[in-house]
């Protein structure tokens, strides 16, 4: 029941790479005072770590619940759903809402609304008869598009000038992390990670399918609802910090399966986080300091994830 030798080696390598990336991010090309660098780069690093954790964990857990390796919360439009909720909140409450309440409270309220909608959607899509995978991807794509357009529309109606500001954050950007939400995000990620780690054995059983899970005494409906709640919170945090990313979760989850070669969540969950850290922090170091390139990292990651998505779909069609 332990990790194979290959898995252990690869996982250690990934951990080493992740640590090196973080060190590199903090220390390369330091030209000013450390007292400035540490909080400046440190907060960005923390933001990226939070995104790596949220995306990795939420995708692996979502794929376990839905028994597939292609669907992710992002592909089902969960992240754009959060964008829609926060845009609508902005419109409904007007500017007063934006100024008088602390931003953390606004964020928590938005997450609460988002969780309720996501749970309803999930119930609608996944209970009773399990539809075909391709049907679900299609529904997710259409849903995502619809949410995105609705969010745009809401903001355009609200304030054309505000719209142009908000539109910039429609795409993930690691140079402009929403640092105001760092601490509330850290808290949320901490709670969710502890919960998921405590449920790791239940997650292993859930991957065997609903019937076997119930047979083995797992309270299926209850635990799946709780897991969906955790996923919605994680996706909201990630989207609030950097914006929506369509294929990043898919990329790190599949990297985690490949790295560990295991079905056990005690390995795949941390592996997905490590893969995310290497991709995000390592990628940032590579682009910013080594290549001195202005290429947006998010776009490159999305490209890789997109290619993987097509490859997975084609392989699925062949089988």
């Amino acid at each position: 029941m332990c990790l194979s030798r290959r898995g252990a080696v690869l996982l250690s390598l990934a951990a080493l790479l992740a640590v090196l990336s973080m060190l590199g991010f903090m220390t390369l090309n330091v030209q000013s005072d450390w007292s400035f660098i540490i909080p400046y780069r440190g907060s960005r690093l923390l933001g990226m770590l939070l995104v790596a954790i949220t995306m990795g964990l939420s995708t692996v857990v979502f794929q376990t619940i839905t028994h597939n390796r292609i669907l992710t919360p992002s592909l089902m439009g969960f992240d754009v759903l959060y964008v829609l909720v926060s845009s609508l909140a902005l419109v409904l409450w007007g500017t007063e809402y934006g100024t008088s309440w602390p931003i953390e409270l606004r964020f928590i309220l938005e997450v609460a609304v988002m969780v309720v909608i996501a749970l309803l959607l999930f119930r609608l899509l996944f209970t009773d008869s399990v539809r075909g995978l391709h049907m679900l991807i299609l529904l997710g794509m259409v849903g995502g598009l619809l949410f995105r357009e609705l969010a745009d529309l809401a903001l355009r109606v609200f304030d054309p000038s505000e719209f142009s500001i908000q539109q910039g954050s429609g795409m993930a950007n690691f140079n402009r992390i929403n640092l105001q939400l760092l601490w509330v995000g850290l808290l949320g990620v901490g709670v969710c990670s502890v919960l998921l780690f405590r449920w790791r054995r239940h997650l292993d059983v859930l991957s065997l399918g609903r019937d076997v899970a119930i047979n083995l005494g797992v309270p299926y409906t209850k635990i799946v609802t709780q897991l969906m709640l955790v996923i919605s919170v994680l996706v909201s945090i990630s989207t609030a910090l950097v914006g929506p990313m369509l294929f990043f979760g898919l990329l790190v989850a599949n990297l985690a399966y490949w790295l560990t070669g295991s079905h056990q969540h005690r390995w795949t969950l941390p592996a997905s986080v490590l893969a995310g850290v290497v991709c995000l922090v390592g990628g940032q170091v590579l682009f910013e300091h080594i290549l001195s390139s202005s290429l947006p990292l998010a776009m490159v990651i999305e490209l890789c994830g997109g290619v993987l998505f097509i490859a997975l779909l084609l392989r699925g069609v062949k089988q």
Partner: protein
Amino acid sequence: MIETRGLSKKYQDTLVVKDVNLQISKGGLTAIIGPNGAGKSTLLSMISRLTPMSAGSVEIDGLDVTRTPGSELAKRLSILRQHNESSLRLTVRDLVAFGRFPHSAGRLTAEDQQHIDEAIHYLELGDYQHRHLDQLSGGQRQRAYVAMVMCQDTEYVLLDEPLNNIDMRHAVGMMQLLRRAADEKGKTVVVVLHDINFASCYADHIIAMRAGQLAYQGTAEQIIRNDVLSDLYEIPMQVHELGGQRICVYFRHASKPSRIP
């Protein structure tokens, strides 16, 4: 004892199971038979809490299945359905080990390992125990899942068409194994069977269903009879005694001439 009272299942407007009152006493092998669409599988999955019932109740040793915690029931009753995940990157041994989950919640003790070894040996999976599920044939995978259920070591073992997709040799092996589980380990085995002759040769009790209702119920001798079976399946059936076993013959009958000109 498994007891159902007024058990019904409704999908939209169609009743798939209608008001079934049933008692399956402890011990022995009970077969559920009947034509396609008779509600056999639905009945089994309602008894095992996989499908919520529309009306009625199910009790296992006096415990209501809808109210008793799932983890408690998992130590008394196990269920295996026809279709199971086959694409998992999981070895046979890992899968069988999941059978211990109700007892040890994922932390395997030495006693659990003993149960796992025994189940693997019982289903003759020793040679494949370190192979991945997706590398096995359909029959081997089916046996791996049965080994998991055996490893769960419950008083009641419910199986939905365990003979599907496996050849004659393994079908006989499977039925002998279930018979042994009932005789040697005192388990109560309930199986949905399509092959009437397997029911005749191995079952102690037979429950016959038709159109969602209980049609007949009794010992194998009472059910494996010309009149009962002909009525149940709506084709002429003849029961012959061959080598001490009651075998139904129905494959070709002269009574209705074929309509092909």
